[in-house]
């Protein structure tokens, strides 16, 4: 073995180790983040946090109950807006449409997907806050719902297309109409994939803060119905983090832990289901 070869082998070993280090660094960031939140947030999580409303400024205590409920409401409404559009739109793309229309719809969805969330906030403000002279849960949900559409649409289409033709043809051979086939055979076969995609879409918008800043605004109290401003977990975290009060910082960590925990849990569950792969039975 000559010197040059030895050198090249050394370089090879070194560089490959470095790539391992890169991967280690990237993955350890996740655990680092988790660790910090568990440590800082864990001490502040107590029953009060989940059940009490925020107290007066500067007074210790209180919790984020209205923020948690607010976020839940926002997400519920957002899915009522985003999921039907994405789901039925996906059905159209997979089952009914021609290629030209499909191209335009897919392009629009991809475009929408890439729009920064703050710009979506501007859109929702112009459309639903200004004309109605109201900050509202609805406006916030609309913004979040729009963000759910692209993921839901593309995933529905993809999973529906993944269902084998044989299933469809079998059903139609038995005399079922197209719509019946879709709703009773194809969709149930792709059900798991579509549900997990919806979960992932929800997890994505659950953490969004920017679009809520000028739609749902904020609220110290419970927000009745959907026409009033509402508190939400991400916005609370943001506001508290930037304040000078130690108690609020504590609560920001706690809120962050709750948010992070929920999002990660949904992601883990959804991905595990997806990776088990076969959402469609092989014939």
């Amino acid at each position, binding site marked *: 073995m000559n010197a040059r070869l030895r050198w090249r082998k050394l370089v090879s070993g070194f560089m490959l180790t470095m790539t391992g280090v890169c991967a280690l660094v990237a993955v350890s960031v996740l655990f680092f983040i988790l660790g910090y939140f568990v440590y800082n947030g864990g001490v502040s999580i107590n029953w009060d946090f989940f059940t009490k409303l925020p107290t007066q400024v500067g007074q210790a205590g209180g919790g984020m109950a209205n923020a948690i409920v607010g976020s839940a409401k926002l997400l519920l409404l957002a899915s009522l807006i985003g999921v039907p559009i994405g789901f039925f739109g996906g059905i159209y793309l997979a089952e009914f449409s021609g290629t030209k229309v499909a191209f335009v719809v897919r392009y629009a969805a991809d475009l929408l997907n890439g729009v920064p969330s703050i710009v979506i906030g501007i859109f929702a403000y112009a459309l639903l806050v200004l004309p109605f002279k109201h*900050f509202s849960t609805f406006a916030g949900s609309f913004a979040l719902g729009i963000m759910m559409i692209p993921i839901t649409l593309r995933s529905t289409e993809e999973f529906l297309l993944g269902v084998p033709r044989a299933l469809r043809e079998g059903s139609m051979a038995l005399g079922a109409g197209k719509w019946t086939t879709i709703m009773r055979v194809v969709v149930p076969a792709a059900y798991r994939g579509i549900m997990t995609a919806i979960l992932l879409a929800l997890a994505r918008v659950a953490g969004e803060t920017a679009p809520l800043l000028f739609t749902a605004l904020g*609220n110290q109290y419970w927000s009745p119905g959907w026409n009033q401003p509402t508190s939400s977990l991400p916005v609370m975290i943001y506001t508290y983090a930037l*304040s000078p009060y130690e108690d609020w910082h504590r609560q920001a960590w706690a809120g962050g832990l709750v948010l992070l925990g929920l999002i990660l849990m949904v992601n883990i569950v959804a991905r595990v289901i997806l990776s088990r792969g076969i959402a469609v039975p092989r014939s």
Partner: protein
Amino acid sequence: MKRLAGTLLLVVAFGGMLLADNPLLINGAGATFPYPIYSKWFDEYHKANGTQINYQSVGSGAGIKQVTEGTVDFGASDGPMNDDQVKAYRAKNGIGILHFPTVLGAVVPTYNIAGVSGALNFTPEALSGIFLGRISKWNDPAIAAANKGVNLPGNDIVVIHRSDGSGTTYIWTDYLSKVNSDWKDKVGKGTSVNWPVGLGGKGNEGVTGLIKQTPNSIGYVELIYAAQNKVPYGSVKNAAGSMVKADLASVTEAAAAAAKTIPDDFRVSITNAPGKNAYPISSFTWLLIPEKFKDATKRDAMKGFLKWAITDGQGVVENLSYAKLPKEVVDKELKAISKVQ
């Protein structure tokens, strides 16, 4: 299909529950300057009365804007709306906007200097120089001259200002414009100005937070924020030549002269006020209330709150280092409340 119908039913039922209860909720937004006292007031009033007043502390600029747009029921600002803004409100809403002073407060220079825990003395020249970026080190003679005996380091000054539209900024720049013609020409006064130097923090809260975390910094915040967070703040030289620290007495004195001659719309500036011990950076803060309310319940609740705030409510303001409204102003206001229809 059954599963789908079942889920839909559940969703609708839940949705129905969301709509169920609808207690009176009034929405307001604006100044962070009075947020501590408003927060206390709204809480106390809610406990006594049940009315929920949701106040979002987003800055005076946002308060003015959102009340003009009509997206909130009332606004709050420590910089009174200027004539253009009042005209714009009328143009947009067809009615007028009324200003109601609620408390008196002070904007203080706060800082974070290692080894300095007491009150520094600031001359108008020093303050304008620092915020213009002309004075860049803490041990500059312009600052040191007024602080003999204090060990000022040679570190760079980190200026911190507001990043959002702020009435506190308005008060601060209003004062600087009065005492320094350079500032008046170069920067001017307003809720959002073109700052020559410095970092931006969001709200009084954000600025206080930044100062606490940034060594060698200086910023301007409402008195209670400095006091509650135990950040040292300095004295300022007033028009009469005395070094005055902001407190209840000095702020009250600043309002004394103006109180007697306060205009009917209550818009007045009391920075750099005359008076031997007047604190030069004091100000009223106002609630911005529309002349007409569409909803009679909201209107009555708002008027009720206002009456309470400027009379009984004044009893708790001093605990939070705000000064009470002068008697002449309260009397005038009580009469003006009837203008709200």
